[in-house]
């Protein structure tokens, strides 16, 4: 991948070496999504109504939001499988605080984000300075986080959670003019991340690190701080997503919260065209990937098809996405 020289970049030269604004994978995803929505709109006319699309976007929001951080991580050729554990810890601590102290929404969100950032930075520090493969580190911390979360749950559920966070939820309080707040928030995060990855030096550095870490280091990129930051951001976003998950849940929170979310997030990123090998990827693709997954799952339910077909479709999408990425990578190396 391209490595920008630390001193050279006049605007013009930077623009010239940037990849195209829209990649092939994003176009394909957008097309698939459009076709699916049209087909679903024809076969189950209710699919394209506000009552259907709104909740779908709310369901997508936390996945796509964490997906932004996960895209950063995977672009650096890393991975974070501790997302579910982080969600669990942030959700249960925030929920208990809401029940016990009845804090305002701002405080609850700030608490969750800060806690997520702390957990994420643990991942980041261990990975950047421990120099062990991220999957091993985050696999370890995933279990530690899960233990931590279960300790706070203490073999019971959190009951009677007040509606403090309902502005992030599925109900009427959760949207303005039909646009769910949680999805709008996610869109803002995607936009900022897109700009960051494309137009800032720090953002381009992530691609360089993922392309070849040693080369990036020799080129003067501060690899370790950058790595810490991507895991920290993922953790903070997981904290914010935990607030959305509390808001979309019932007034009871149990220990299944977050379970399986890490795989849903990774699926969205991979389907979105970010290379699992690092060095390539986009947050727009991740957003489209998350939308595609939820569209398929909701579509299967709305069409009255057997629920398990959703797994098959998502599985095929992942395999196709990874397959095309590997083929493309091979072609590039041969060229």
């Amino acid at each position: 991948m391209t490595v920008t020289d630390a001193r050279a970049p006049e605007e013009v030269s930077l623009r010239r070496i940037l990849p195209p604004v829209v990649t092939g994978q994003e176009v394909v995803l957008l097309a698939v999504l459009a076709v699916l929505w049209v087909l679903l709109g024809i076969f189950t006319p209710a699919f394209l109504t506000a009552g259907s699309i709104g909740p779908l976007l709310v369901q997508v929001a936390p996945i796509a939001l964490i997906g932004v951080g996960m895209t950063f991580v995977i672009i650096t050729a890393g991975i974070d499988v501790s997302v579910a554990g982080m969600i669990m810890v942030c959700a249960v601590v925030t929920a208990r605080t809401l029940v016990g102290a009845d804090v305002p929404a701002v405080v609850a969100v700030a608490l969750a984000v800060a806690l997520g950032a702390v957990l994420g930075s643990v991942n980041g520090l261990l990975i950047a300075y421990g120099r062990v493969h991220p999957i091993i580190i985050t696999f370890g911390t995933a279990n530690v986080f899960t233990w931590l979360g279960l300790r706070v749950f203490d073999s019971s559920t959190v009951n009677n959670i007040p509606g403090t966070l309902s502005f992030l939820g599925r109900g009427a309080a959760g949207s303005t003019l039909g646009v769910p707040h949680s999805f709008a928030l996610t869109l803002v995060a995607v936009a900022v991340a897109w700009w960051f990855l494309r137009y800032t030096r720090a953002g381009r550095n992530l691609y360089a690190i993922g392309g070849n870490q040693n080369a990036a280091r020799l080129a003067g990129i501060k690899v370790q701080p950058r790595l810490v930051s991507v895991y920290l951001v993922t953790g903070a976003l997981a904290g914010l997503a935990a607030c959305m998950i509390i808001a979309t849940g019932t007034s009871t929170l149990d220990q299944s919260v977050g379970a399986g979310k890490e795989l849903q997030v990774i699926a969205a990123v991979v389907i979105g065209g970010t290379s699992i090998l690092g060095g390539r990827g986009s947050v727009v693709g991740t957003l489209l990937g998350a939308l595609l997954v939820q569209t398929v799952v909701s579509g299967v339910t709305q069409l009255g098809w057997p629920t398990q077909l959703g797994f098959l479709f998502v599985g095929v999408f992942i395999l196709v996405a990874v397959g095309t990425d590997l083929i493309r990578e091979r072609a590039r190396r041969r060229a």
Partner: protein
Amino acid sequence: MTIRRTLRGVLALSAAAAVALAGCTSRNDPGQDPEPGDDTGGAAVEDLTIAFVPKLQGIPYFEAMNTGGQQAAEELGFEWLYQGPTTADAAAQADIVRSFIQQGVDVLFVAPNDPNSMAPLLEEAQNAGVHVATTDTDAPDSVREVFVNQASVEGIGQALTDALMEAMGGSGQYAIVSCGETAANLNAWIEVQEAYTASEYPEAEIVDIVYAGEDQAMATQMATDLMNSHPDLTGLVGECTSSAPGVAQAVEDAGRIGEVFTVGLGTPQSMLPYLESGASSGSILWDVEALGYLTGWAGVQLATGGDLGDTSSLTDDSLSEVSYDEASGELLLGPPTIFTAENAGDYDY
């Protein structure tokens, strides 16, 4: 280089998948002394250890059963052990069962996640001199001596259907949001609901049955999808304790209280806000603490050679309808309880 990096990618993906399978931990019960297994026929109640392995630990339902079991232990004088996996995982549950066999407990109760894979393990336990039994969920083709049944399959299926039909006015389309697709008890109830609806309420129709796993958020999303794809839908059933509040939440979020009615098998505390708002028209369950108590009592009878059919020592009101069927080896708690906004607050689980 290419090969190595490809491998790394593949490894990353497969290991990520492994997380879902391996991410289970279990808590140890504090302060229990392992005792060697011995023949306990006619043993004193004070020396008895009765262990219960729930499907999973940390959900209100099984915690309430544990409370009931502890209460029985206090009153009857035996030692009650309670430990389960943190996810409804058959393998993790099997490990806990094995550890109880090794500790040489006197009676072992299991609510199996997978009755088929639990059966050989129960036989192993019996060979080690442990009395084995099931509670909450049966393992029909096993060596279990008794199954402590919360309510009959017909009782639950019919109570659910009647409660929903009362709210829906006896007609209309409804859908079921179930949980595990292979859960035997849920599927048995659904069968009754289908047959009973067809025979008793010919104007009503079940339009779809979906499976959300034990995931509340998934249940809510699926209920939302069902309401959208079936505009004439006026009823939803949440078939387990995670989907019952889930479907009620979906109706509340959609602002369709009074248009779409829900019933489900939910614990009173988790259903109370929805019963009060009208998003849920009724929660069908049984007195879970009484079920736990009955489980403990049955354990004592098994270990001391007592008569399960003689329920005269069960004096509490919640246990007044207990009956024992010798042929099937089922100890039945009684008819299900219907929780409403009025009485749900009386239960603290």
